[in-house]
């Protein structure tokens, strides 16, 4: 088991309700799990509990058999990497320097990157097709290229678990697909485990082996996409009528319906 949550609850300070309520789930090696749900359902909070940045107020979060909060950051960063949607400040670093930071947990203070570190950085740059742009200032990259650089940085950590927190939220369709295909390709190759938070139900259904639906902090469904994506579940979670269509090789798609005028007025 790569990651296990047992009856986990969490509340942000100053709030009166739990952001995550009594969630229990386990993720096994090599799985690609999509975390979906409406805004404020607790998806990102759940991810931050797994990273150990937040500590649960009840229950247990384990990563690779050890409590998330008990890991030394340096040791955890060799097992787990995160790509988020948060835009980082323009730092004036080159693409190679950004990706090299993925080797941070492997390098001792006062020393430079070793030969193996540089080899890993080069191969990760190539893996996301940024080899040619490696000396470019990261501030000059497009949104899609920047997210690929951050994926390369995460891969350079050589993790066993990759967490994605809406990394494609600001990307157009083409860049999103390219990003997700890169993730799929590398996770298959290295039997990497992925937990991805996303708002895009249909792309999630195509890339994930398993889908977890959260609503108001609770886990409401967990299983293959075909079982999770049902009109009733989605309507109750998102508060909007949804139709499910089977598009053959493209899989099942959730399509939000237009409401009739009298329905909308209610």
């Amino acid at each position, binding site marked *: 088991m790569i990651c296990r949550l047992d009856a986990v609850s969490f509340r942000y300070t100053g709030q009166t309700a739990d952001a995550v309520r009594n969630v229990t789930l386990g993720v096994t090696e090599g799985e690609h799990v999509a975390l979906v749900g409406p805004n404020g359902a607790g998806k990102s909070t759940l991810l931050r509990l797994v990273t150990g940045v937040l500590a649960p107020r009840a229950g247990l979060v384990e990563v690779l058999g050890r409590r998330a909060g008990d890991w030394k*950051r*340096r040791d955890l960063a*060799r097992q787990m990497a*995160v790509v*988020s949607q*948060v835009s*980082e400040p323009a*730092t004036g670093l080159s693409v190679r320097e950004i990706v090299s930071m*993925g080797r941070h947990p492997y390098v001792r203070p*006062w020393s430079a990157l070793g030969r193996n570190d540089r080899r890993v950085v080069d191969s990760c740059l190539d893996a996301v097709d940024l080899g040619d742009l490696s000396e470019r200032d990261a501030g000059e990259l497009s949104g899609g290229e920047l997210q690929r650089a951050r994926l390369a940085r995460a891969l350079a950590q050589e993790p066993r678990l990759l967490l994605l927190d809406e990394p494609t939220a600001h990307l157009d369709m083409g860049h999103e697909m390219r990003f997700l295909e890169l993730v799929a390709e590398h996770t298959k190759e290295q039997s990497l485990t992925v937990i991805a938070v996303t708002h895009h139900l249909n792309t999630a259904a195509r890339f994930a082996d398993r889908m977890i639906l959260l609503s108001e902090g609770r886990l409401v469904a967990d299983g293959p996409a075909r079982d999770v994506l049902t009109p009733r579940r989605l309507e109750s979670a998102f508060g909007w009528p949804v139709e499910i269509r089977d598009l053959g090789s493209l899989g099942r798609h959730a399509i939000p319906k237009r409401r009739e005028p009298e329905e909308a007025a209610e």
Partner: protein
Amino acid sequence: MKGSIVALTCLLFVAVAVGLLVGPVEIPPGAWIEALRGEEGPAYTILWRVRLPRVVAGVLTGGMLAVSGAVFQALLRNPLAEPYLLGVSSGAALGAVTSLALGLSASAYFALPVAALAGALVAIVVVFEVARVGMRLDTRVLLLAGVVVSAFLSACVMLILTFVRADTLRSVFFWTLGSLSGASWAMIASMAAYATPAVVVLFGLSRHLNALSLGEETAAHLGTDTEHVKWLAYALASLLAAAAVSVAGVIGFVGLVVPHGVRLAGVRDHRALIPLSFLVGGAALVLADAAARTVAAPMEIPVGVVTAVLGVPLFLLLLRRSVRT
């Protein structure tokens, strides 16, 4: 990076040479050679007892303030951050003023720097105590607490000044403007004892500072123990500033302008930024002090005035340039 380190080390040597050559007393070349060979005489005294300690103290003080500023700017991700942010300067001022007002510094030469250092350390501890929740350090609270504690301590300084004699007022005035005129080898030794380990450890943290510049959560994901690094870096950077202030008084703008200048020259990686800031800061303060001694000779201008007068236009120029690009 190696090239710029070599170039800036050369700049530092030029600054040191200028600092040794200029002064109110003109020394003929022959006397210089005798003094360098160790032959006693007025030139020997001026070189070894007056100018060299002053230049070395300038290199250390300027370098410490610049490194401290570079670290504060990285931790706070705020371009306005400077070494005196956590109340170091006003704490040191209160210590210094107290020792002057009580007449302690008249009885023992080391009383003033020791009192200033104690004042600075008290200010740092108070600010840290306000900003910490358990072992977590809230950077925004730290910034606010620093500003408020500074204001409070400055008010205390003003209160004491209301009651002191005119000559004490004058000494306080000159101390707050900063000066290297009190430099001695004993002082340099104690300053180097602080500065060397602090700068070495901060340099060792530079990869973490790079990670922190991306935000605390990202740094944590990359393996940085953010709370530990923040504590250590804030404490060491404040110690550097406290040690510099206790010896040389409040010299402004070096800690703000120098690391910015190095950054605007395109250096973003703290493994380069920290050593380069030290070199540029040291050279800048030695040159400013050389100007302070000669411009109005035989009068001496407080070096803090020179750094402000030269530093501010330079800073505005750099700022204009960065806004335009």
